Each structure stands twice: as C-alpha cells, then as structure tokens.
C-alpha cells in the first residue's frame, strides 16, 4: 500500500510575464555608453533594481564585444536579465540567457534633464504627471490594450506532431490525431475531432478552455491540471464539448 500523504506532489510549472525595460545599444558602443552615462548622471538610479533586457537584434556584434558591453553595463549598475535577438554563437557561458517572444508594450521615455527624482514620463495618451515616481507610470503602460496573438492551423495535426504556442489561442480547422499534442497559452479550439492531447492555459491561465466538435481525446489539461478522457462522463465521448477549470477541478459539458 502506498501512503497517499507520502506520494510526491506534482510539480506545476507556470509561465508569467513581467514588464522589463529594453535597452537597444547602438554602434559605436563607446558613444552610446557615453549617452547612457549622461542619462544616468541626470537621474541617479534610473536603472537601479530594474529588470533590463538588452536587444541586440539589429546590430552586428561578436561574442567578445557583447561580453565587454555586458560588463560595461554591469559596472554602471545596470543588471541585464536577458539578451534578446542574439544568435547562440554570440552568447558565451556566464552571460545573461537568450530571451525571445517578448511582446511590445508602450515606450518609456528617458527622464528629462533637471528632474530631481528618477521619473519616467508616461507614454503618449496618458495624463502627464511629472511629479509621480516612475513606478507609478509603469501600470499606465501595462493598461494599454494589447493584442492577443492566435495561431490558426488549416491542416490536421498529425500523430507525432506537437504544436506549442504559449502566446495565445490555438485554432485547428481539421482534426487532432491520436498521438498528436497541442500546447497553448490560451484556449484551444478544434473544429474537427480531438483525438490527441490538448493542454490549454499552459502559462498559468486558469481561464483558458478547450472546445472541440468531437471529443475523443486521450488527455485534456488546463493550467497544469489534467484529466484522462476515460475519467470523464462516457456520454461526452464523440460529442461537441467544452472543457474548463473550476477551482482545481476540470469540468466538461456538451456544447448545446
């Protein structure tokens, strides 16, 4: 007999997005660093404690040069949490990790000269409030409407194929075969038969749902909680069904 209290708890992995400032260095780096120093002089501690991502997408830079740049920045108290747009060959061990899949948000203006406190002017459209600290400006940027991307697949998803789309919803016009797998950050819509596995809300989205025209799935999961279809009501098999999460329980119901 196995003691259920000793059974290992399943580890749940969740994704979470944070807002980070993105620095896009320009060549020559000496002049760009001078500009950065100038900005830092005018507003002490602007970068202190902020997560910063270095975007090297549009510049040609070698591994050694990039390393020097990261070191230069860290000597100025700028801590780089990740590098975006770098080739694997440009990243040496010990450098910040490569980042991808960043979503654009509103720009954050650099502080104006003469300002006493480190403050960021809010993005265009928001009320200018220069006396507010920079931290208060960040939610204003977040509140801007953001388009949620979705992935539409016009072909059936075949056995052995895995579709991973953490950015948003996945819509499949055909069927998802037995042995195929869909992993979506948002909801999953299948207009054919769902015979494989569907994992919705994989980046910690408990509101994600799974919709299919014919439920014959091997496994469905939302936000890390899964259910085998054999554990579901047998009457739902072959029906048009939606699956959602209520607390920690997976619910399923025929679509009317």
């Amino acid at each position, binding site marked *: 007999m196995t003691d259920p209290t000793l059974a290992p708890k399943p580890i749940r992995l969740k994704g979470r997005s944070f807002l980070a400032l993105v620095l896009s260095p320009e060549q020559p780096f000496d002049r760009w660093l001078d500009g950065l120093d100038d900005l830092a002089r005018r507003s002490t501690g602007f970068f202190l404690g902020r997560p910063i991502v270095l975007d090297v997408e549009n510049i040609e830079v070698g591994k050694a040069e990039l390393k020097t740049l990261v070191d230069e920045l860290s000597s100025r108290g700028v801590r780089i949490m990740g590098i975006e747009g770098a080739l694997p060959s440009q990243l040496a061990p010990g450098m910040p990790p490569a980042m991808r899949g960043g979503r654009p948000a509103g720009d954050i203006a650099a502080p104006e000269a003469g300002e006493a406190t480190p403050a960021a002017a809010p993005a265009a459209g928001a009320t200018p409030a220069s006396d507010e600290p920079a931290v208060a400006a960040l939610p204003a940027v977040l509140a801007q409407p953001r388009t949620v991307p979705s992935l539409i697949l016009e072909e059936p998803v*075949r056995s052995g194929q895995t579709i991973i789309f953490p950015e948003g919803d996945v819509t499949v016009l055909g069927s998802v*075969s037995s042995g195929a797998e869909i992993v979506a950050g948002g909801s999953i819509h299948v207009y054919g038969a769902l015979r494989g596995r569907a994992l919705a809300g994989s980046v910690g989205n408990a509101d994600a749902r799974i919709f299919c025209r014919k439920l014959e799935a091997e496994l469905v999961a939302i936000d890390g909680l899964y259910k085998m279809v054999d554990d579901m009501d047998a009457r739902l098999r072959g029906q048009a069904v939606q699956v959602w999460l209520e607390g920690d329980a997976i619910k399923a119901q025929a679509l009317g």
Partner: protein
Amino acid sequence: MAKVIVVTSGKGGVGKTTSTAALGAALAQRGEKVAVVDFDVGLRNLDLVMGAERRVVYDLINVVQGDAKLAQALIRDKRLDTLFLLPASQTRDKDNLTAEGVATVMDELRQHFDWVVCDSPAGIERGATLAMRHADIAVVVTNPEVSSVRDSDRIIGLLDAKTERAEKGQRIDKHLLLTRYDPIRAERGDMLKVEDVLEILSIPLLGIIPESSDVLRASNLGTPVTLVESAPSSAYRDAARRLAGEAIPITVPGEKRGIFGKLFGRRAA
C-alpha cells in the same frame, strides 16, 4: 517531366513492396517508362516480388557511392519492356545512403523515366525519410486497422515536413491506398470501415485493394500482381490510372454500387 512517387506507410507488412511492384507494372503496361527503386537497404524484397532476384549485379548503394553507373544497375523487366528495377543492397545497411548521393540518383532517374516509384522501408528513420525526400506524390499504404492508421497519420505528418517539396513551401500530393480490405470482416465490424479511415487520415482515396490469396501467390511467383487477372489486379490497375490523372469511380469491394452511389443512395432515402 518525370513524376516521383514514394510508396510509404510507417508500419511494416501492410503491402508497400507489393503495391510498388503492382503500381509500377500497371503504369508500365500503359506504355510509360517506369523505374521502381528499392530503398529498403539491408532488407531488400522488391527484387523477389518482381522476380529479378537472380539478375541483381549492382544496386542502389553502388550507384549512390559511385561504384557503378545507373545504367549498369537498372534491371529491365522480362515481361514489360518499359519497366526497370533499381534494387537495394542486401549486404549493407541504411547508413550507406547519403542525402547527396540519393539526390544525384533521383535527378538522373527523372531524366530517363516518366515515373519513378520508390519503395520505402518501414519506420520513420533515415531510410524512410530519404525515400520520401524527393517525391512529388506519396502513396500511403494503410490496412484497415488502428495501428496501421495511426502510423500512416504519422507518416503523412512527416511528408508535410521533411520532403524537399515541403521545405520549399510546396505541397506534396498524398493519396491513400487501402490494402488487405476484407469485405466480410468489415461487414462484421472486425475491421475499420473505409469511411472511418478516410475520416482519420483526411487524404484522398486512391484505391481499395481487396484481401486475396492472389496477392500472396503472385508475390511468391515473382510476378507483380497486375500482370495476372484477378480482383486485386484490377483494383491496382484502376489506382494506377487514377495516379495518371484519369477519373475512375472507386468501388468498395463487396458492395455492388460504388462508394459515391452508396452515399447518394443514402441521401435519397
């Protein structure tokens, strides 16, 4: 311009080699120049089914490695003037097939033939992916049972990802050839129905070959099925005509009306 066909399935024992020989012979019977190529290096069988096992001197590996010219390795069929066989090697293994070597051989075959029919080995590894790599058309051989259908589904996914056409953003034509179909077992519900297989795989149907002892007998005699008159023989010949672009209605063995007639019949009822 030559058309390259790959006969593939994922699962073993479903009838790839038999179908390659039968389709190749049926296309050659139309007077077109056909090469059948055995990609099953190490487990060659196509030469046996074609009745040419005692005539193999050079093989695909020799040509790929440049030890023999293509013309030296091709074996002309004794019954059909326009049918040629490029055998596989029995003593080597699939690691001897290089991507560049296969590309060169396929290019040369395209220049000399109207049809190049490649017999893929089972599995999804190197041999199978190299066999499908240069194909314009894929014939997916499937038996009406679940494991064969799932393996075919997997192969269709690979055809859409790993072929040269797919990598160039073009489409590869995929056709389903349902083999070993037994009308009596289908009637009893022991086998998947034609509609079920089509629903799962969702590719067009090229033909349905009935289960028959004629197929085994022809293989053992070293004669492509299509050279002797029988029910599977005419089903294969119809499939070859459809490959060549003719519109011929498909009949489900054991049913008097065609599948389309049946569908219409239901609608009218």
